[in-house]
């Protein structure tokens, strides 16, 4: 891994963090639990790294570690998206449909 690569990665990291900050400060407190389970499911993207580790046959140890990593990441992907959807399904507006918006304060 070269220094150029490290710098490039830092660019991606900082800019993504910035986007995350802007987007997430606008999520209302109402949805903070689904937000947490959603980001948890999304960060289980480490599954793609686990898959390569489990399948590339570097060594017996690496394959085994990769297998455990694939399992844990898959638990978070499957469980995380399902439970987020289950929660979001429950949030609904009142019958009168008042015009007021839910709080937008972070």
């Amino acid at each position, binding site marked *: *891994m070269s220094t150029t*690569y490290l710098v490039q*990665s830092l660019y*991606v*990291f900082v800019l*993504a*963090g910035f*986007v*995350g900050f802007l987007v997430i400060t*606008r*999520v209302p*407190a*109402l*949805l*903070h*639990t*689904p937000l*947490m*389970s*959603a*980001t*948890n499911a*999304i*960060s289980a*993207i*480490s*599954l*793609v*790294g*686990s*898959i*390569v*580790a489990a399948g*590339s046959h*570097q*060594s017996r*140890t690496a394959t085994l*570690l*990769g*297998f455990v*990593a*694939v399992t*844990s*990441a*898959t638990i978070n992907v*499957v*469980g*995380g*998206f399902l439970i987020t*959807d289950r*929660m979001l399904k*429950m*949030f*609904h507006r*009142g019958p009168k449909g*008042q015009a007021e918006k*839910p*709080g937008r*304060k*972070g």
Partner: protein
Amino acid sequence: MSRDLLIQASYLASSVLFILGLRSLTHPDSARRGMHLAALGMLVAVVSTLLHREIVDYRWILAGLALGSLVGYPMGMWVPMTAMPQRIAISHMFGALAATLVGVAEFVSLGNGAGVGHAQMAALGFEVLFGSLTITGSLMAFLKLQELVPGAPFTFRGQNLVSLGLFAAGLALFGCLVAHPSQPAVFHLMLAVGLAFGVSLVLPIGGADMPVVISLLNSYAGLASAATGFAIGNNVLIIAGALDGASGFILSVVMSKAMNRSFRNVLFGAFGAPQAATGRVAEGLAVRAITPEDAAIQLAYARKVIVVPGYGMAVSQAQHQLRELAALIEKHGGEVVYAIHPVAGRMPGHMNVLLAEADVPYDRLKEMEEVNPEFANADAVLVIGANDVVNPAAKHDPASPIYGMPILEAELAKSVLVMKRSMNPGFAGIENELFYMPQTSMLFGDAKESLQKIITEVKQA
């Protein structure tokens, strides 16, 4: 070449879908559709990764995917909403475990560090250090929330010294590895130190501080994922990890502010330890205890009722009875809204999810700033299993440990009805003067049973 290009393009698409998915969470009506996009992004990334040219054997991958789905499905579909805090805590553990193991596998594959450059070692070290402390930290949080270990803070003399010592040792080993990556023993020692630090970090933290801790662990799990991305050269990991890290960080800041505490104070303060002689203790004052019948009379024809739910509501699972009572009050022409303090419960947004589960429309759930001006106009405030978030001492008593914490101003209402299991003081171990005010009446007992009795009475009224 074209295969790599396809994989990279699909990762880019996934990153965009993730950001769109999170953006949809700014409004409850668009949230579900947005999260479907994010799930699609995940599917695209995983399927295209299976085309990776380094993969020569699919057996272990498929086994892991199958086993993970088998465990993940019940964790997604069957876990009750009341168990959400511990469910989230354990999922932080799985996330950190995956990130850490990928880091260890990478280290082992590259000749036990022999083929690792300084920059890559920095990424790997960061990943393993943060990942390992998140694994055990989240596990401890899970055990506490599930009450498999006592939820009360566990402290001993020199606790902070041990924690700081472990932290310093972890950093020293990290520095040592970056200077000379080819030291498997040091690498494993750092892993062990990280695991120990996670335990010592969460052990002294009490139940009511869990919202901050869970948010912080969320952030750490995200940062560990991002570091994995640095170490194995994968941008979608960096992006998703950064999003998760930012989210957890923002939530911890929101939670800390809502408790008027700093991170340092939460992590090293062991707040729940006995606080002798704090605040004005209501010596000689008596509370006014009432029966469910009296409470029913108070509530049946109230025009405006504000409900303040707390962890006690979650414990007795009283949200469905609460909703039923609210429906009755509304039938009599009254209005019911719910005042949600940011740190009510054991995780951010805990109360909102429980009430949504009980079919309370989300436009009735009000945030603190929005609802505080309304208390003065309320005929009745119904406090269910909440304590510190309605303690007026936070506003005027500098001697109180919760002084400065923003509270729900229930004391301004015409009448306050507090449902509580017993007169035990709340988590902070301090008396709540709201309970002794002339407009306050106390209804002791299990919240669910009490509400059921009130419902029966109101129906007859």
